[in-house]
């Protein structure tokens, strides 16, 4: 819903002050390509493309200069897979696929990164590297919304919400502020 893939039945979602519920399908697509990076729970890589090409796919939808091979290679290096850049997803492990998906989510330098269990298939060392990268990106101004079942990752969060029987409640303790209940429409 945050990404405009489904529209809210009530309430509003604003990104950079824009109510995305009022945007046309094309405008939402454009907003997604420009402002939002996705890391799905599954890898979501396209099977017919190499790892490098997968990382470059979002540049097909953006008008900027961000989509260069050099930038994609840099991101692949960042996730530690430079030697696997020309490999097809079918021959990558699930952890490697997840890391390529993270690189892909960052290619257009989005202002919002939505990550669903981004470290689910990763070993502890890679998990730490990815979380350090997320922390760095967050400090540089990127908003990261991450869904996780791993309580060890709480230390990386600046705000934490907990989903409880269809209600989202902000957890205090990390930052001050009143809990923010959000009704989820399905």
């Amino acid at each position: 819903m945050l990404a405009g893939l489904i529209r809210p039945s009530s309430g509003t979602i604003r990104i950079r002050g824009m109510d995305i519920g009022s945007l046309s399908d094309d405008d939402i697509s454009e907003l997604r390509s420009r402002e939002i990076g996705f890391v799905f729970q599954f890898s979501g890589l396209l099977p017919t493309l190499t790892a490098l090409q997968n990382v470059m796919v979002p540049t097909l939808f953006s008008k900027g200069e961000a989509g260069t091979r050099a930038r994609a290679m840099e991101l692949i290096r960042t996730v530690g897979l430079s030697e696997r850049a020309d490999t097809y997803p079918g021959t990558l492990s699930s952890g490697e696929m997840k890391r390529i998906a993270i690189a892909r989510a960052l290619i257009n330098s989005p202002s919002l990164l939505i990550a669903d269990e981004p470290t689910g298939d990763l070993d502890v060392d890679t998990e730490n590297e990815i979380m350090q990268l997320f922390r760095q990106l967050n400090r540089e101004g990127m908003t990261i919304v991450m869904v996780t079942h791993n309580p060890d990752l709480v230390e990386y969060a600046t705000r934490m919400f907990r989903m409880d029987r269809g209600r989202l409640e902000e957890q205090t303790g990390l930052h001050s502020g009143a809990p923010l209940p959000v009704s989820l429409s399905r």
Partner: protein
Amino acid sequence: MNSASEFRFFRLVEQNLRNRPFRSLATIFAFAIIASTFFSSQYLMSGAQQSLDAGISRMGADILVVPTEYAHAGQTVILTGEPSTFFLDGSSVDTISRIPGVAKTSPQIYLATLHASCCAAPVQMIAIDPERDFTVSTWLKENPGITLGKDDMIIGSAVVQDIGKDLMFFGHTYYVVGQLQQTGMGVDNSVFVRSEDAYVMAEESGKKAVKRLTIPEGMVSLVLVRVDPQISPASVAAEIERQVPGTKTILPNGLLNAVTGQLNAVTRLLYGSAIAVTAVSVPLLGLLAAMVTHERRREVSILRALGAKNSFVAGLMLAESFSLAIVGGILGIGAAVGVLMSYQDLISQTLKIPFLIPSPLTILAQGGDALLLLIGIAGVSSLYPIYRITRSEPYEAIRKGES
């Protein structure tokens, strides 16, 4: 950073096609079949038409008058050069000449030869009256320096002998002075001589030849008629048939109709196959595209989640479909051209039609037509899958992928 380092739309198309080989090859094969059948029909029709145009232009006649009982044989001689000997009363030439609208008449004697050293099969010998001829004389005017003198011979393009060499028929030696250009019609298998030399040859054949040749006194085989420009050949032809009993007139249109008739069965088969293949292919290609689309729903949803608009997805699917159509079309047309050119003579003989390979420009235009047809089919067969996929909710497909 140069543009070559970017990831482009057509690279995505290419990767999608290359890495789905079964779907791509099956679709290419279907398109190749449609293209080859459609193209072959066009190619055969235009080859026959071109040959007729060249052959009729070579004869230079508006009407051919033949004996009624040999109308079919006469037509076959003209179209395919299957040799035949037949006769018509020579006095009919004068009668025809007096009919209003007739500008010129040219009697010819048709003699089927025996096997000769030049030729794998008997050829058609055509004896002309140089004073009245406008078939060979037109060609002679275009080739100054060549004359048809005593015992001279002009040969068709399919007759194998060098100019300046001799050819013997019925024990009579002729001197080859010229060779006509290819028309694809019967004239290619014919040899032209003066009628007075043919009479001498017939007279001497009893002594010199294995088989005696007889040319009945005062007889001709057919009469070529040229009509005044402002007069309708059809009306003159009707008048000839009325005034000269026992004759049948053949007009160029009639020849065309005869060829079309002979071609009809083949073209019906080819067009029928093309239509049947197309009729079956469109839903099949649509089904194939729909199956692939269903299989690719999650992939398309990921593209949508990454920022692709519906128009991008539609463009991607159309580009893939068009690419397969173009590749299949080029392969199908290429194969058809290869087979048709390699077996041109066999096809022409089997179908009993005159045939000339169409010009490269015509072949290109026909290939273009076939490709346009394929692109149309590719577009139509993609419409429903595109409609389905662009109406589906990407979120649902992504959730299915997660479960």
